[in-house]
């Protein structure tokens, strides 16, 4: 049984930004974190992850630095910038509004 969900368009950026909120992480860790936290419901394709990370970097929402990982290897760590935080909160409120709207419509029993 395939329990995995496809990501909605535009939500990957939000997921990445949220994942980076507690602190810097490298690409692999971000993917794993999203997978784990969503109880394996969401799987981030590598093919979308890295373009998304570089796009966020180009927009100035995250910064990238090479650092030594806890296993002693050099990895590219992404860190949320101040602008990234702002972006996260605005994306997040957009998402909340959207989810609420969806919920309202799906829950209603009224006839049109």
């Amino acid at each position, binding site marked *: 049984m395939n329990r995995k969900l496809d990501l909605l368009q535009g939500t990957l950026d939000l997921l990445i930004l949220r994942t980076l909120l507690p602190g810097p992480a*490298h690409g*692999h860790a971000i993917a794993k974190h999203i997978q784990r936290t969503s109880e394996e419901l969401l799987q981030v394709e*590598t*093919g979308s992850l890295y373009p998304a990370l570089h796009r966020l970097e180009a927009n100035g929402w995250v910064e990238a630095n090479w650092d030594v990982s806890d296993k002693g290897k050099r990895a590219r760590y992404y860190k949320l910038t101040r602008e990234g935080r702002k972006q996260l909160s605005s994306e997040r409120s957009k998402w909340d509004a959207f989810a609420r709207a969806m919920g309202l419509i799906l829950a209603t029993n009224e006839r049109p």
Partner: protein
Amino acid sequence: MNTNLRKLLWLFERRRREGELADELAFHLAEETKERGYDAARRELGNVALIKEDTRAMWGWAWIEQLLQDVRYAARTMRKNPAFTVLATLSLALGIGANTAIYSFMDAVIVRWLPVRDPRSLALLQWHSKSRTEESVVQGVSGHFDDDPKLGRVGGIFPYPAFEELRKSTKVFSALFVYHPSRKLTVMIGGEAEVAGGEYVSGDYFRGLGVTPEAGRLIVAEDDRVGTDVVVLSSGFALRRFGDVARAPGQKIYLNNLPFRVAGVTPPGFYGVDSGSAPEFYLPLHADMSLEPRDGGTLAQGRYLDRQYYWMEMMGRLRPGVTIKEAQGQLAPLFENWVASTAENDAQRSDLPKFLLSEGARGGDRMRRNYEEPLVTLMIMVALILAIACANIANLLLARSTARRREIAVRLSIGARRGRVIRQLLTESVLLASMGGAAGVLVAYWSVPLLRAMLASGTSFVMRAELNWHVLAATGVLTIITGVLFGLAPALQATRVDVMPVLKESRTAEPRVRRLPVSLSQTLIIAQIAISLVLVAAAGLFVRTLSKLQSLDVGFTRDNVLVFKLNAKQAGHRRGELPSFYREIQHRLSAIPGVISVAEADSPLIGDGAWGWAVVPVGKPKPEHAPTGHGSFGGWENTHVLQADSHFFSTMKIPLIAGRGFDERDRVGSTPVAIVNEAWVKANLAGRNPVGDHVVNFGMDDKPVEMEVVGVAKNAMYNRIEENFPATVYLPLDQNLGAPADEMTFLLRTAGDPLKYARSVREIVHDADVRVPVTDLASQEQRIEQHIGDEILFARLSAGFAMLALSIACVGLYGTMSYMVARRTGEIGIRMALGVPRGRVVWMILRQVAILAAVGLAIGLPMAYAASRLVGSLLFGIKPGDPASIVIAVATMLIAVIAAAYAPAYRASRIDPLIALRSE
């Protein structure tokens, strides 16, 4: 940092980022492998190349890659059409090159700032008054004013007391300084004499301009006193005379035989405050008291005190925060009150000079006023040439885009957006323009020094035109505009296709000819013909102006005369010994084999200004405002005066029509005599024969002397070449009736080329006295050519530009017609198969061109006429709408157009009907 900027920075470290991305993905793979094993990890990762490609797209280089792709494609297309590419590049190179060259002169004359510290806070002091009022507080003048259409008479010269008055106001300027050009002084360094011009400057000049010395020190306020011996050299002069600027400070040099000590040297780029001047040295203001003790009739002390003698140019540096407008507001009442106090009567009070402060960043404006109009005219001409070249290429592109309809239809049909295709086509045209622009810079690189040299021989101004970054940036912008300009219309037209019919056409078939009254291509040809007509007509006017000037009767014979000047007074001779010194030289010169006669005069005839003062028949009053002194005053009826010896009339071949010439009788002590010319007789005696009459000579210092008129000479030009001969009175040199002739002009009539005798002349003068340099040595013809040098250059340039425009337009016409004939091969074949004779085919093609030409000329004629009125002030001896010039221009255009179209028409008539029909 914004996104685009960040992406741009990444562009420069592209290689590093590529590596980083590979490392990053490798790390990911390694992590994944640890968790799930290599195969699963590899599977999960998927297509690495694709990930890289997608990620790279996020770096924002897609558009650059597309651009490179477009450029590569464009380069391929250009290589496939070498003839088109070469032709287009060449015509663009000429067009852009001419624009760059002329713009570099515009930049030097009109745009560029002075090379000093913070030029924007400099302000130029001037005044303006109603034009041409006879009575004015401006009684004496040494310098220039200009006539401005709006302001009237504009002057940048002031009396010295005005400077002292304005200097009191210290709130506006942090420095206020005056300066005026020196006469040509005899400079003697280490036994070698030469004549050079410099600038007298007040103590704050260098401090105010913010110039730092290249060596030694510059002039400071303490140097400016009577009897000073401080001189500062320009770096060019120091380099030339001492080999090294560092060696100049401390050296002793002689100016007009007075000792001076070099204090320092100005930096290499510095040329004073007038972009057209080139002072070789700078002297403290009051050094002129000893170097130029008198200026015409005025004594040096007198000029510094005289409140109606205008001669000092003035400039100031504004205090920080003070605007030109505020400064004008503060200074205007100060100056105007002062000037009002100098007025002596009501007439003078009625037209007092008004103060005028303007920005001084570009220095004095004499050269601007002189050259703005000719330069703008030339700039318009070269812009029109470029327009013709653009129309040309647009037309060729149009023709080609018809041939590329299929290619474009295919691209559109498989999903290319129209904008994308237009971008591709524009890339091609901008690339073409860039090649043209690069070649154009080469053209300019060669032509600017050539133009500068041509100008240098004709004017006293120094042109500092060069291809600096300023000019090159303008060329770059122009190139891109050009590319878009000639590429846009064809690109729009090419992409406006109905895809299906085009794709259904067979490869060789004729595209259906659209039936519009006038096609874009025909419009372009008409425009080219009209513009060319304007340029050819303008060139005709300037060439005719030049030929009028060159063929004008100057009243004396210009060939086989050598002219030069000596100033023994400046070299240290006392005034009393001058006549015998000059007489001795004259003797030795006459002994040169081949020299027919040698004359002396106190001024050359053309190009050196003239002497002038009132000379009137006995009993008539002295004219109120007769110009007195030496200068270039206008008005033929104002009396011009020349002191000459007994050989003068025969040497210059000026015929005497009545009476006698000067001879040994006319010495000091004998009856003062004069010879007048016809123009003087006309102005003063209404044409009556004056021989034997007595006239009053008021002289420079207004001491009337009665003279007897002994002869009447035919008219001759003096001072400059203009339409009317000036009224002239000749005085015998030996009788000392005019200003003391310190400087003598020698005129040698020679057998054959006068310049061959230059060496003998120099040797003789050198032998007579080493300290006396020979100056302004030239043939009389050269002097005249130099005098009309601007007109010569202008006529040559405009003729060259017109020819260029015409040939570019003809090449374009030829190309378009050839293409059209090729396209109609089948149709013409059918016509000929049906029996149309060859002659009719030629006519058929030519008729089309003739109609276009007729329309083009009809549009161009009024344009040419209007344009000729705009350049009216640059013409001499002909009226703006000169019919001859316009008729010649029209005829030239018709011949050129028919010539360009004849070859394709002839080729059309040679089409073999059988071959043409078979290829269908």
